[in-house]
């Protein structure tokens, strides 16, 4: 049916229709417009045998971010926006945050504009935009939760916990979660946790994509100690701290040994940040401290002293590929 026919059927002209759109029509139009806008930033990633997955245009010079669990191979990757596709090179991956960064020979699409996470609240509409086929595809839901920083089950540090109830249709991983205005909340992944739609927030993409593009992986700091939480006695002249990390082993030749750490020391803080849990230590040993000398407060024989340790780099884990 042509446009005049459609308008005729509702008893008005096309122009009248735009003036008298009811609320549900306005909503529908706005959703489709946001999907169309965001769709220019969402690409098809051909990197596994069956269905392609999705990716997000990250820069005007051809960087693409996608979900690393959807890549079944490391070479022979292609990225497309419409019917045809262009070769892509894998620059880096981080399984902990489920990110992979690709470089295109010929840039495609355009960068999305990010949403301000401070304005994203539970109950807001959220749209998943993906492109496992030629055109953009979309599912609709609401933001279920927005929380502070968290660590994924695979050990990646994410700047915000973002959960929605959008349906993750096959091939949607690596695609965008957008707000009602088409702005990027983050990258969707069904690989971060089973059965829930989680999103790698834009802040984490901004932080991690350049590192993965440059270094190929996330560097993590390495001390070479085995620790376990231990309850602390009250220490005079210090802010109250109920627990520290008891050193249960020191690897020979490790940065910890070179820095003078001994079995039985209790770690209290690193660079002034209290160490009470394993999480605290893992969070402190981030990429930016690799190669740097850090001040480590330890409790030894009832006295607090400060050691200076040059943090090493943890060897990359062996990479398991899907399929």
């Amino acid at each position: 049916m042509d446009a005049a026919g459609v308008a005729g059927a509702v008893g008005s002209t096309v122009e009248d229709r735009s003036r008298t759109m009811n609320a549900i029509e306005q909503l529908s139009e706005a959703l489709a417009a946001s999907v169309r806008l965001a769709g220019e930033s969402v690409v098809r990633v051909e990197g596994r045998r069956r269905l392609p997955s999705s990716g997000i245009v990250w820069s005007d010079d051809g960087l693409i971010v996608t979900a690393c669990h959807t890549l079944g191979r490391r070479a022979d990757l292609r990225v497309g926006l419409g019917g045809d596709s262009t070769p892509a090179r894998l620059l880096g991956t981080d399984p902990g945050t489920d990110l992979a960064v690709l470089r295109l020979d010929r840039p495609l699409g355009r960068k999305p504009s990010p949403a301000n996470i401070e304005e994203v609240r539970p109950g807001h509409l959220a749209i998943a935009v993906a492109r496992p086929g030629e055109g953009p595809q979309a599912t609709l839901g609401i933001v279920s939760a927005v929380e502070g920083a968290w660590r994924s089950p695979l050990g990646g540090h994410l700047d915000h916990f973002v959960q929605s109830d959008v349906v993750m249709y096959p091939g949607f991983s690596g695609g965008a979660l957008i707000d009602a205005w088409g702005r990027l909340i983050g990258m969707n992944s069904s690989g971060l946790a089973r059965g829930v739609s989680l999103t790698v927030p834009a802040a984490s993409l901004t932080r991690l994509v350049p590192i993965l593009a440059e270094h190929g992986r996330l560097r993590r700091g390495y001390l070479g100690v085995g620790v376990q939480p231990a309850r602390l006695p009250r220490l005079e002249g210090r802010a109250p701290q109920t627990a520290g990390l008891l050193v249960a082993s020191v690897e020979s030749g490790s940065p910890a040994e070179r820095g003078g750490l001994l079995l039985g020391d209790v770690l209290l803080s690193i660079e002034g940040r209290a160490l009470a849990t394993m999480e605290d230590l893992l969070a402190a040993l981030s990429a930016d401290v690799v190669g740097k000398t850090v001040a480590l407060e330890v409790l030894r024989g009832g006295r607090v002293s400060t050691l200076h340790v040059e943090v090493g780099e943890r060897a990359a884990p062996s990479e398991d590929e899907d399929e």
Partner: protein
Amino acid sequence: MSAWLKQLADDLADLADQARRSLVTVVGDGVGVGAGVLWAPGWVVTNAHVARSPRNHVRRPAGRQIEVRRRVQDRRLDLAALAIDGEAGTPARLGDSSALRPGEWVLAVGNPLGVNGGLTAGVVIDPAAGRNGGLLVLDLHLRPGHSGGAVLHTLGEVVGINTMMNGPDVGVAISSATVRRFLVQAGLGKATSPIRRAA
């Protein structure tokens, strides 16, 4: 804002009323087996898998059963057209399924799990799925009994026929353009041509 939300809810309810006006239950062997859409006066469109009994009837909610006097079907497309005599609701207004966009709002009506006129709503995931692009993949919850019922867009026009579930959260419908092609090929193009009001 809450006034706008109220308006949204009211508009959805109006759309639901409209969807139900063209909805029939397809009855086979004396049991309601699915839904159908009064496509044109005297013609109901449904899935072939819904009208699979050798003798079918259609029924409006609280209405009497009307015998189907002729069935034309295409099992490969999973479509059937049923000829009836007598009143069976208001013929649907037909929309342009080829103009659907991902993210656009749609509503599906049928008899899910035996509930007459049961509705589900969501957005278009993929408006041109399947081998020939003749399927709509939808972000809504089709259930057994929705089959043969209509998918409507926000102007209240039929753009598809509910056909199957793809998991609990995704519905698949046959586009109205495909239905139209089926009807034309079956020689019913004129008998079922869309109703248009003079502009």
